[in-house]
C-alpha cells in the first residue's frame, strides 16, 4: 500500500532522465490505477467463483426442503431470502453459509436435528417461496429424474380423515435407508421405553393425540414399545415404511424396517430413531435418492 507514494514523488526526475514528455507521471498513475482495478476485478470474481468448489465436490450435499427443484436448478432459482425458514412450524429449515459456496443462504434440513414432519399440513415453505425454487408445479421444461416422482400423491396420516388427505407433492426429497441394521432395535428384537432422543434433544414434532396445530418437544412425549417401531409409527406419510417380521426360529419377535415407494424422504424416521452409532442413526435419509436407483 505504500508503493504509490515514493514512486509518484520520484516520477518527475525519472522523466527528465529518460526524456519522456510531460504528463507521463499522470499517465503512469492512471496505468497503476488501471492495473489495480484489473487486479480487484480478477480477485473479486475469483473469490466469487471459489463458491463453485463446495457445489462441484458436493461436499455439502444437503437435504433440501420439500418441493425443491433439482439441485442445480434449485441453487439457480433460490433467492436466498429465508422466507421458508420463517414459516416452518418446527423450524426444520436452516440456511447455508459461506462454506456452501453458491449455496450460501439457500435452505436445507438437518433431519437428525429437526426433520420436516409436515406439521403445517401443506408445505408452507413451498407456498412462501417467491421464486419457485420450492414449488408444487415444476415448470414443464424441467423433466424429473427417473425414480424421483411418487407413484401417487402422498397421503398425510394426520389428514387421513380430511376431505383432502394428500400432500400436493409430486417428487420425493430423498429416500430413507436402514443404514445400520446391526444397531436397529427392531432387528435385534428389542423394545424401547423412554424419550426417543433423550432429555437434551431440542427437536419438536406434531402429535395428533396431543394437538394437531401445536408441535411439542419430542422429549415431552416418551414412548413405550415392546418391539421398537418408532420409524414406522411416527412416519407422517401413509404406506412409506413398514415393519417386516423376521422369524429366526428362536421364538424372539424380530422385525426389519422396510422403506416403501411412497417414502418422500422427509427424515422423521432419522430424527426419531433412538439409536445411533458413529453419529449416524440406524435409519437415515439419503438426499435426492430416487426409487429403484
Amino acid at each position, binding site marked *: *500500500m*505504500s508503493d*504509490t*507514494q515514493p514512486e509518484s514523488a520520484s516520477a518527475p526526475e525519472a522523466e527528465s532522465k529518460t526524456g519522456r514528455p510531460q504528463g507521463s507521471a499522470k499517465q503512469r498513475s492512471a496505468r497503476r*490505477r*488501471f492495473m*489495480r*482495478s484489473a487486479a*480487484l*476485478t480478477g480477485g*473479486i*470474481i475469483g*473469490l*466469487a*467463483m*471459489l*463458491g*463453485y468448489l463446495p*457445489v462441484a465436490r458436493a461436499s455439502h450435499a444437503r437435504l433440501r426442503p420439500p418441493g425443491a427443484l433439482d439441485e*442445480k*436448478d434449485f*441453487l*439457480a*432459482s*433460490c*433467492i*436466498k*431470502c*429465508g*422466507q421458508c*425458514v*420463517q*414459516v416452518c412450524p418446527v423450524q426444520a429449515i436452516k*440456511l447455508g*453459509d*459461506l*462454506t456452501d*459456496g*453458491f449455496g*450460501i*443462504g439457500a435452505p436445507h434440513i438437518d433431519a437428525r436435528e429437526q426433520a420436516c414432519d409436515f406439521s403445517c399440513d401443506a408445505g408452507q415453505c413451498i407456498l*412462501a417461496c*417467491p*421464486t*419457485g425454487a420450492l*414449488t408444487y408445479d415444476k*415448470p414443464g*421444461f424441467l423433466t424429473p429424474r427417473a425414480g424421483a416422482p411418487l407413484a401417487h400423491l402422498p397421503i398425510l396420516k394426520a389428514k387421513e380423515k380430511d376431505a383432502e388427505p394428500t400432500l400436493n407433492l409430486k417428487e420425493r426429497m430423498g429416500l430413507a435407508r436402514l443404514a445400520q441394521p446391526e444397531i436397529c432395535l427392531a432387528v435385534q428384537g428389542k423394545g424401547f421405553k423412554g424419550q426417543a432422543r433423550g432429555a437434551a434433544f431440542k427437536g419438536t414434532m406434531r402429535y395428533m393425540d396431543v394437538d394437531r396445530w401445536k408441535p411439542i418437544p419430542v422429549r415431552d412425549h416418551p414412548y413405550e414399545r415392546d418391539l421398537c417401531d418408532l420409524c414406522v409409527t411416527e412416519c407422517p406419510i401413509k404406506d412409506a415404511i413398514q415393519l417386516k417380521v423376521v422369524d429366526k426360529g428362536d421364538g424372539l419377535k424380530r422385525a426389519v424396517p422396510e422403506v416403501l415407494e411412497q417414502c418422500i424422504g422427509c427424515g422423521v424416521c432419522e430424527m426419531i430413531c433412538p439409536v445411533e452409532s458413529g453419529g449416524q442413526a440406524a435409519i437415515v435419509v439419503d438426499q435426492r435418492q430416487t426409487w429403484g436407483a
Partner: protein
Amino acid sequence: MKTFKEKLLVMLGQDSKKPASYSPEAEQIHKLKRLNKADFEAMKQHTREHQLVQNKWRNRRWAVLIAVNLLFVVSFWLDIQMLEGALTASRFVGFHLIDLNSALQVMLAHKHIIVNLLIGTATVFFLWVLLGGRTFCSWVCPYHLIAEWFEALHLKLVEKKLVTDHEFHRGARTVFWVLFSLLAIVTGYTVFETLSPTGILSRALIYGPSLALGWVFLLLMFEVFYSRRAWCRYVCPIGLTYGMVGTISPVRIVYRLDKCFHEGDCRKVCLVPHVLDVVIKGRAEEAVMAIGPDCTRCGLCVDTCPSGALTYGVKGLDKLL
C-alpha cells in the same frame, strides 16, 4: 444541458467533462462571481462564520435504515409477520418485494420467471423509481451503514498519514455488473450472492450470525487500510442496478449555483464525488441542476454545505411548493 446519455456514462465510469456552453442565467452567475471577487470572498467568509453544523439528514437516514432492518428482524423474532424474508426478497404485509439485483441474478441463472417473482420485482422497481434509485443504498442497505462507520476510521488514519486511499477506476463497477450477469447466465448459479455483503448482513441480522460475516469483516478492513468505500464505489452491482432506476426517479439532490462558493466540502463527504463534479468552479451549465443518477441521496452534502446550495428536491413538486 447535460444530456441523459452523458449522466449515464458518468455513472458507468466515464469522467465528467467541462461544459461546452452555459445557459444565459448560469453564464451570468459565473461572470458575477469572477467580477466581484472581494464581495464573493467576504460573503464566503460570512457564511463560514455562521455555518450551522448539523447532521439532520444523516440522523434521519440512519434512523430509517436501522428501522427498516429492525422491522425484518422483529417480524421474524416476535413473529409479527410485517416484513418477512430478507433484503434479497421479502413480503411486506403479504405483498411480494424482491431486490432488483437478486431478481436479476435469479432470472439470468434460472432462465425462468414465475409470476410472484415478476410481481415482487416490478413492485420494488416502482417503489425505488418513486424513492430515488440508489436511495436503497444509503437508506436501506445494512452494509452501507457499517461501511460508513469504518469509513470514519479510514479517514482518521488518512489524516494521521497512516494509510493512503487507493482509488480504482470507477468503470470497474460496470465491468463487475456485466461479469456477474454473464456468470449467472453461463454458470447457472447466482454467483454474486456468494459474496454480497448486503445479503450476508441482512440474513445474519435476521437468522443469526454466520461464517460469511468474516468475509464482510475482511471487506471492511480492505476499506479501512487500502481503499475508501471500495465495495460500494467500485464493485457492488446492486448500486449500479439501483443507479439505473435512479435515472428516471424524480427524487434527487438539487444544486443551486448562485448559493455555491465552490469550497468542495460536499465532495469530501460524498460516497460518489463524481456526481458533484458540477460544483467545481465553472462546471455548472445551468443555474439550478439535478445531481446525477449515481447519487445515493444520502444527504451528507446537504448537511455539510455551509451555504445551502444543495437540497433535496422532487422533480415536478418543487415548482408546486
